[in-house]
């Protein structure tokens, strides 16, 4: 039986970070599945990457910027049209404070 890499408590913590919630059964299932997956990932440790640069972007291109000019954007009604929780040009959400 493989040593547990991630515990149920850690799963609960990660879920909180990701703004997800699970019932007990799902937590057990995720803990078990994530453990198998992370165990499989252990093989990356066989590689010596001490002097290797990480790759974040595969093409060697400089950072491109557009001119800072104001161009027409979307009309407000269109932006608001995908929510039914709208009032006076705002999106309504539960009280924050």
């Amino acid at each position, binding site marked *: 039986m493989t040593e547990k890499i991630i515990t149920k408590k850690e799963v609960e913590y990660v879920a909180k970070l990701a703004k997800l*919630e699970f019932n007990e059964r799902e937590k057990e299932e995720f803990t078990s599945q*994530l453990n198998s*997956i992370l165990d499989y990932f252990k093989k990356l440790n066989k590689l010596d990457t001490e002097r*290797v640069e990480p790759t974040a972007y*595969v093409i060697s291109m400089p950072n491109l910027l557009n001119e800072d000019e104001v161009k027409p954007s979307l009309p407000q009604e269109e932006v608001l049209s*995908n*929510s039914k929780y709208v009032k006076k040009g705002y999106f309504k959400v539960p*009280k924050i404070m």
Partner: protein
Amino acid sequence: MTLNQLTAHEAINLIKKKRITAYEIMQDIFNQIDKVDNLIKAFLVINREEALIQAKEIDKKVKNGEKLPPLAGVAVAIKDIIATRGTETTCGSKILKGFIPPYNATVINRLREAGAIIIGKTNMDEFAMGSSTENSAFGPTYNPWDLERVPGGSSGGSTAAVAADETFVALGTDTGGSIRQPASLCGMVGLKPTYGRVSRYGLVAYASSLDQIGPITKDVTDCALVMKVISGHDNMDSTSVNLEVPDYLKSCQEGIKDLKIGVPKEYFIEGIDPEVKGALDKALKIFEKLGAKIEEASLPHTEYSLPTYYLIATAEASSNLARYDGVQYGYRAEEYEDLSSMYQKTRSEGFGSEVKRRIMLGTYALSSGYYDAYYLKAQKVRTLIKEDFDKVFSKYDILITPTSPTPAFKLNEKVSDPLTMYLSDIFTIPINLAGIPAISINCGYSKSNLPIGLQIIGKHFSEETILRAAFNFEQNNSVEKKKPSIKPVKHKGAKK
């Protein structure tokens, strides 16, 4: 034969010569959809009226003797992860059900300017996470070659629609193989461009450093035609590259004498179906006959690709999917205590389990204390994998491998073990990590009449070369040209 069974280039030609009208073609397309889509379930949304109107407009242009744009009258189906203004775009997820984008993706505008007719949106694994289209919140899509099997994923709907002659051409997306693997399982042509070749503006992001949009077509000529239209720099996508788009169609037609082909030995491993190996061996002989030089090559870090991909892609996904919080669009939970609980319930009720699994994995890999061990490590291994390809491409023009280790598998066969499902992308994933282009084309059928795909890989921005190799193989192989039967399955008392 009905008009929907043609290829796009055949249809374009007949419209130009006034032998058929775009309207007649569109009628046959919709007749086919009406006839078979209740069995295949490739489509989520169909834009019938709008499509017929656009077809009539093309016919008017023909009548007036106007010059026709390059894809005039061509029916195109769009994977539901690409934004289409005014048409629902769900990404195969409950969390975006009812979402209507207020803008078109750049590729949609380019297709429309080229005269193509968007006929609908296709089914997919939720947020492009999957290899079978079984992760769609709206039910699976079925493989036209055997309705008990998967079409592959995540672009299963797009691919099945092309294979079943419900459309001429479709757009899919590919982050770890999601164009090429379904193309292989459905016997179609599927191309993943070089990262940055095609604009991602309007593509709902899964893993931003890996995602690419690409064509799924019936033959290589159609693929070249669509690539010419959708490729090119876009100011709205800062990762799109400012390189001229070649005339892919023209360069296809040149021969492949003296083309140097590498066959990476690490791709011919245990677990590959012997029929797949057999088809590949036969195919390589055709390339040799056409004058290419074939040699064994090596990509030593191949076995590390899968964990590298699943760390990078899930980490990027956990960030990209953080925006789905119910505030501005999409699903919002009905019952919650406060803002935080609204986010939690919205996301937990709106996302499917594979999406949640990947968000969890990605969040964990990026979290404090684990970032170096997982995400940073994976980025460094990504460099090693990319360098493997740089080395082989200094010696070879292209590489050839199988696309998928097996032909199409049965529905429900791999759903219970995520890791088993992940292994179906083992040959396609390294290509995304390196950002290089690759195409899958049919190279044979198994004894149970299931398509087998061959993958041709090139170096950055070498789409011309891989298309040329694919075209020459397509025109000179002895693979039987056939269509799937799309017959319903007789359930002998089996559970539905």
